[in-house]
């Protein structure tokens, strides 16, 4: 029961972070600030969701931690493999997401896009 509550909290917070990032992606005034918003989805949202799935894979139904505690080493293997895959998914998401957005910011800068300031109304070039 406690495991379900913990997983529920983690997944709920992760979903909330994802939606927050996406709303920021829609509402912010120019490309550079939208990159900040999408960064929330890429790092915090993905991290909390995968962390919730990790807790479920370890301690939920058929989890590897409960199987190891009861002494069934063979039954723990699928859950352990899933946890390794989840950790590598998170690692790739964190590394590749931030690198891609950094490259995108550099490309936008090289193209001549100027960040939005409050006095002038968005001097973005249109393509």
């Amino acid at each position, binding site marked *: 029961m406690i495991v379900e509550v913990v997983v529920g909290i983690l997944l709920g917070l992760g*979903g909330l972070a994802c939606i927050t*990032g*996406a709303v920021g992606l829609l509402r912010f005034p120019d490309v550079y600030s939208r990159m900040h918003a*999408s960064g929330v989805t*890429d790092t915090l949202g993905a991290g909390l969701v*995968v962390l919730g799935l990790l807790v479920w894979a370890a301690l939920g139904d058929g989890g590897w931690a409960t199987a190891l505690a009861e002494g069934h080493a063979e039954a723990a293997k699928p859950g352990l493999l899933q946890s390794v895959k989840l950790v590598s998914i998170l690692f790739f998401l964190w590394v590749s997401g931030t690198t891609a957005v950094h490259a*995108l910011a*550099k490309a936008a800068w090289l193209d001549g896009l100027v960040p939005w300031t409050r006095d002038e109304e968005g001097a973005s*070039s249109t393509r």
Partner: protein
Amino acid sequence: MSVFAVAMVAVMVTMALALVRALRGPTIFDRILAVNSFGTATVLFISVHGYLAGRPDFLDLALVYALMNFIGTLAVLKYLHAPGLGAADLAPPGEEGP
């Protein structure tokens, strides 16, 4: 099960909002950013759906997606600015371009 359903709904809302930005975004960089966000949301969609459907063996697909998303985004950026992305110093905007 219901917890995974809530997470699925949240991820689907994220995908829909990212798609709106991809369709609307005035510059090309808005759209590239939105596609990147959409790809991350798809990775989370696949991972959570595996646990929702009781078959979490398809997490490999989420891993493949995370890599494909990265490669696709970098391919589009290379197409736009092939020599410039490797440069170490940056001039102010407008003085150095493709």
